[in-house]
């Protein structure tokens, strides 16, 4: 099935954009650490949390991945980000990720959308919250050119 195009009109506040389960693997952690040129024993060997943990930003790209699994998306510019960490995800742990449309608004003649991704653990306890704010082209009905 073809994915719908993402635009200003497709933003429904509170609507679930997508959700999935993923298992945090040592390979994911290694790829993240290589990507950001970081190293830490807590991520690769052992930590005070009992075994290796994932870096707090391990899920940073998953907001857009989940959006792109569900929409065709062009030309959104990442403008702001917010992160709240409740506890680290453990390597080997399965977590649940859910992205919703949190907010949309018009400011300085531009459209803005806020997506929120909640990451929860196997027992449903909160792991982290990621907020991703992008600039979106406005449709003609809202003062845009499209």
């Amino acid at each position, binding site marked *: 099935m073809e994915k719908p195009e993402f635009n200003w009109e497709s933003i429904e506040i509170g609507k679930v954009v997508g959700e999935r389960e993923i298992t945090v693997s040592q390979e994911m952690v290694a790829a993240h650490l290589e990507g950001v040129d*970081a*190293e830490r024993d807590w991520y690769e060997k052992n930590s005070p949390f009992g075994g290796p943990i994932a870096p*707090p930003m391990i899920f940073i790209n998953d907001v857009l991945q989940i959006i792109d699994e569900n929409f065709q998306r062009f*030309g959104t510019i990442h403008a702001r*980000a917010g992160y709240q960490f409740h506890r680290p995800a453990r390597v080997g742990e399965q977590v649940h990720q859910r992205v919703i449309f949190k907010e949309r608004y018009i400011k300085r003649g531009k459209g803005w959308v806020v997506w929120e991704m909640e990451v929860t653990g196997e027992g449903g306890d909160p792991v982290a919250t990621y907020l991703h704010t992008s600039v979106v082209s406005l449709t003609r009905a809202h003062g845009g050119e499209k």
Partner: protein
Amino acid sequence: MNKKFPSPGELKAGEKILGAIHELGREEIQRYNRYVTGGKDTLNIHTDDETARRAGLPRAVATGRHPVSFISESLVDIFGSGFLTGGKIDVAFVKPIFPDDAVHVEITVREIRSEATGKRTLLDISLVNQDGILVTVGTASAWTKT
């Protein structure tokens, strides 16, 4: 990248902490792109000047998400589990980061607040490029665990 930082219990309001310098050459940006794409080399506004120009940019730019990890890792260095269990980051991407820029993290202690569950340190954070220009600005906080 793990620089020696002061212990959180010694921090005072107004104190400024400088993080390590991170060079974001094309290879580093390419490596982060491979991480985002699951190992693939792709042409996009982050990796290809021509694609970036077609999108209205002067040339390729690094993703804003990439260097946010530099901030979070600096906060793990300083606060350890106090950041991983209750830490927050809120940032705005105010200027582009171009290939071959070098950025460093600046952290300023704004306030140390006593709350019912412990001491929370409120911080102003920024990423500054080699010309002294703020490219990312925001706030963060973490618990001080003793």
